[in-house]
Structures are given as structure tokens and as C-alpha cells.
């Protein structure tokens, strides 16, 4: 498919696009409301707050209460979108999301920013390598590991009326553009970004661009890698993943998350039950976070294109056997 990806900085950062998108949503549907927990500065929604004091609420530093309030707003007929940093939007409030929203059959959109290594300077306490696992375990939840701004903005709007828990984990800046501006996206429908026969790399979130870089390196060695973005880690595009397993015989997954419970886990679970081929996972090897720049952390946790290439070599060896 046609991609915008060049590997360079995005034309516009997510922080620049987020508020205008929320505003579009406000116009589209008078029931949409937005809640934050004293982190409006980080997604640049302060102006939105000033402009729409009847649609935007800053709850203060009380994420659990914010989830409960969102659950109540839903009961009253509203469509709440709520934001905090990813650890506070998920693990800090897991029971509230699970029960007050999920189990009680309510609908709330959760936005967790700066997931995984994108927390950089905020360090280990803010570095969330488990949010995909947590949110995946909620029945019926939709879990999106945001790869670029176009995908995020599109799905924010298109999922407006989706039922249940919808979770977006998103970077705030420096995520390279991957998709054309007019690209469309669907929940549960993955995308094949590059065709290839030797192996499939399934990558989500900020690792999608990394996988495209790895694909180019592999191509230079004469290895043809298919790169797939699942778009939604849950529901996973099972048909597509199984087709890749069948056609390429081996899969490498890549995620900015613990290899336990996230994208790699989801793919391995599906493949082992239905079309057992080797699934090799690139991601955080059951470790905690730490401070550092994105580049430093990619080095520390093995999240560079070269790490995917190495895993691809291993995968091809396993495939031969």
C-alpha cells in the first residue's frame, strides 16, 4: 500500500492535532465530552478547556475518580473521552475501568499518552510496559497501539459510538508519519504495509515505523519481509495474522511493551492454537522502565531496527528446521 513513511519527523505532532480533532468530535456529536486529570498541558488541550468549559473538565489529579465520573456521564447519555499518562490511565485505575465501565456495560474512551519508552525523562514510575496486557484482559475492550497521527485521529472519530472500553495508547510527539492523510482504518482490520514472503513482522505503535526501517535493512540483504500493523491489538485481525503465518511460515512481533501480554502474546496465542509456526517477540523482556532519551531506551531494551533484523535472522533459521 501507499505509505508516507520516510523515517523523518512527522509533519505535525499529535499534540498539535489532538485538540482540533476533539473539536471536530464536539461538532459532530453534542454528547461528546472530554476529561483530563491535570495533564492537559501534555496533550495541549488547555485552549479547548477554555473554549468549551461545558464539554471539557479538568478533574485534577484523581484518575480513579475521573474514570468513575466518565462512567456516570455515560449513564447520563454522554460519550466521554478521558486522558492521562498511560500508567495512570490504565494500571492506576484498572478496577474502575474494569468494573465501573467494562463489566457494567458502559462505554468510555481512554487515552493513555507516552506509553512505554515514550515516557523518557519521567522514568520508571511513568514507564508503562503493561497497559496493553491490562486492557486486553477486559472482555470486549478495543485496544489501539497508535502508530501515527493519521491513524489516531481517524480512529478517535470513527470509534465514537463504539460500545465498551476503547483504549488508545499514544505517543505525543516524534512519531514518524506512516499513513497517507486520507487513509481509512477499521477496528479489527490490520494493514499489510509491505508485501513479503520470507517472514512477517507484525509491529504496533511506535514500533511500526521501526519495523519499516528493519524491512529496508532486510531487503538490502535480499530478505523479503512482510510488515503488518494490526491497527487494533484487540480485536486482533485473526484472519490476516493466520494468513501471514501460513504464507510466510514465521512471524516476528515488535512492540514497545512487555513481551508478556501485549501484541506478541496476542499473536502467539492465536497462532499456536490455529497455525503453529514460530513467533519471535521483540519487546521489553519482563523488565521495569528507567529514565533516558528515546534513543537510549531503544538501545537499552533492544527496540532498534537492528534488533528486529537480528530476530528476523533467528526466525528464518527456525523456519528452516
Amino acid at each position, binding site marked *: 500500500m501507499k505509505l508516507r513513511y520516510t523515517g523523518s519527523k512527522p509533519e505535525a505532532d499529535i499534540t498539535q492535532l489532538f485538540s482540533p480533532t476533539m473539536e471536530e468530535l464536539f461538532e459532530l456529536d453534542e454528547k461528546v465530552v472530554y476529561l483530563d*486529570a491535570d495533564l*492537559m498541558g501534555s496533550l495541549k488541550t488547555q485552549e479547548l478547556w477554555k473554549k468549551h468549559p461545558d464539554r471539557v473538565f479538568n*478533574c485534577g*489529579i*484523581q484518575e480513579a475518580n475521573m474514570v468513575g465520573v466518565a462512567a456516570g456521564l455515560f449513564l447520563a447519555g454522554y460519550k466521554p473521552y478521558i486522558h492521562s499518562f498511560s500508567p495512570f490511565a490504565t494500571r492506576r485505575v484498572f478496577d474502575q475501568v474494569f468494573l465501573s465501565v467494562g463489566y457494567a456495560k458502559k462505554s468510555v474512551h481512554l487515552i493513555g499518552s507516552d506509553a512505554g519508552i515514550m515516557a523518557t525523562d519521567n*522514568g520508571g*514510575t*511513568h514507564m508503562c510496559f503493561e497497559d496493553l496486557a491490562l486492557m486486553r484482559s477486559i472482555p470486549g475492550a478495543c485496544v489501539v497501539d497508535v502508530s501515527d497521527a493519521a491513524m489516531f485521529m481517524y480512529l478517535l472519530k470513527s470509534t465514537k459510538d463504539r460500545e465498551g472500553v476503547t483504549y488508545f495508547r499514544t505517543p505525543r510527539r516524534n512519531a514518524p508519519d506512516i499513513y497517507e492523510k486520507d487513509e481509512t482504518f477499521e477496528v479489527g482490520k490490520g494493514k499489510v504495509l509491505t508485501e513479503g514472503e520470507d517472514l512477517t513482522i507484525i509491529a504496533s505503535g511506535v514500533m511500526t515505523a521501526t519495523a519499516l526501517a528493519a524491512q529496508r535493512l532486510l531487503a538490502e540483504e535480499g530478505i523479503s519481509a512482510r510488515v503488518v500493523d494490526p491497527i487494533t491489538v484487540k480485536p486482533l485481525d485473526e484472519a490476516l495474522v493466520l494468513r501471514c503465518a501460513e504464507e510466510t511460515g514465521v512471524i516476528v512481533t515488535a512492540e514497545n511493551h512487555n513481551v508478556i501480554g501485549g501484541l506478541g502474546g496476542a499473536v502467539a496465542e492465536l497462532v499456536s492454537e490455529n497455525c503453529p509456526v514460530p513467533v519471535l517477540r521483540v519487546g521489553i523482556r519482563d523488565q521495569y522502565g528507567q*529514565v*533516558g532519551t528515546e534513543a537510549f531506551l531503544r538501545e537499552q531494551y533492544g527496540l532498534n531496527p537492528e534488533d528486529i533484523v537480528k530476530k528476523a535472522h533467528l526466525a528464518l533459521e527456525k523456519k528452516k528446521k
Partner: protein
Amino acid sequence: MNERDERLELERFALRIRIGIVEAIAAKGGGHIGGTLDLAEFLSVLYLRFLRVRPEEPDWAGRDYLVCSKGHSGPALYSALALQGFFPYELLRTLNRGGTTLPGHCDRTKVPGIDATTGSLGQGLSIACGLAMGTRLSHTDQKVFCILGDGELGEGQNWEAAAFAAHHGLESLTAVLDWNKMQIDGSNDEVLRLGDPVEKFKAFGWDAELVDGKDVLAIRDAVSRAYRRKGRPGLIVLDTVKGGNIPCIQELPNNHCIGVPAQLADRAMEFLRSEAKRLGVEVAE
């Protein structure tokens, strides 16, 4: 020591803590500077006059504990700890760099002298309750201090801890609120009104008092009362200004977590040097 000399000594140490904070954050190029600087006077009083700790034995089982629940103010504690000899002062320059042992948020596993790992707001007071309960179970006279942020009090867990501490009469526990009236997205009044923290904690069954956060002698007297308090937990509300009395930082509309380029750092250091001259403190150029 007469009161004038006492004040001078405590203000000098507060200034040195501030210099350490600015040097550390400037070396990184930015960080959580606002709500870090304003703790200097309190930490000066606590470390110089009260806290029973051993720099050469940070894990000494008989120490008084300090939990900094607003973990982003780590650099304030780190500066005080470095000056007290818990680790080399030069380490401050590695603040928050990849591979450092001084991450911006308080980390008990990496920093000698840090008693609690914090950074997800709202969890420290419960840890402090556990420590206070532990000291009671062990029949020691150890004290437990817990630094809180006013924005942080939005987290309900603080109020769970407040009820717990009062119910159990945790007299060794003293919470210290950095009442700078600001959080990230604005003032407490704009984001989430806090009301009068003294009245709130009193209603929970705590002793609580308001103290000028710049006045080292007033802080000294309050902490001294905390060491003698019986029967119930106590709260010292420090009336502070976010940005900690460095004009060029204090006057910024938002100084919570900011880039500190050389130019701003130079202006801050220039001010601190003039303060050093006034107080008779020697600082390296």
C-alpha cells in the same frame, strides 16, 4: 546559638540546596524545577536540625524516615543528601540522564538516603503510615515525615491514609504539605479547589498548622513540635511559592516541568550568587 545565627545557618543551607537543584536540573537541560525549589527551607531545617540519619549508613535501621510523596521533587532531596554526604555532589550533574543512579523521581532502589520510591502521585502518605505503624510495633521513637503536594491531594488515597493515620493515632507521622497553590494545568482553585488544608486535616482528626514556608525558624519550631506531639498524626502546611523564590523562575506562568536552557540557568545562578554574597556563602564560579 542565638536566633540570628541560627536563622543564618539554616538559610545558608537552604541556599546551597537551591544551588544544587539548579545545577542538577540545568545540567540535564530541564526538569521539575518549580515544586522542587520551594522545599529548600524545609529540607534545610529537617536535615540540619532534626532528621536522625547516617550518611555513611543510609540504611541504618534506627533512622527517621522521609517519604517524598510528590516524587517529582526528587532533586530537592538529592541536593540535600549530596550536601550531607550521602553521595558525591558531582553525581547531581547526572540527574535524569540515561544510565544514571539519580532518576528525576525519588527512587529508593538507586539513591542512598531515599526511603520511598514515588512518582505516581498519591501513594506516599500510605507508605508513611506503614512506616509509622512499624515504628510503633517495634517500640522505637523514630519519626516519619511525608512531603505532599497540594495538587496531589486530589488523589483519594491521601484521604484514605489520613483516616487510617488518625484512627490509629500514628503520632510519629508528620505530613508536610508544600502549599504552593499550583499544580500543572493551573492553580488549585482553577483545577480542583482544595479549601483550607489545615481545617480539612483537623476534621480528619489530625493536628495541623500553617507555617510560612520561607521562614526557617518558624519551620524549625513546627518540626520541633512534631517531634514532641503525642496521640495523633500531624500536618505542617508550608505556605510556599512555586519556583522557590528565584524571581526568574517564579515569574514564569508555568514552571512545573520546564526546559532550563543555559540562559535561564545563568540568570537563576546569578540571583543565587547574589544571595550567597548576602548570606556569606562561598560558591564555586
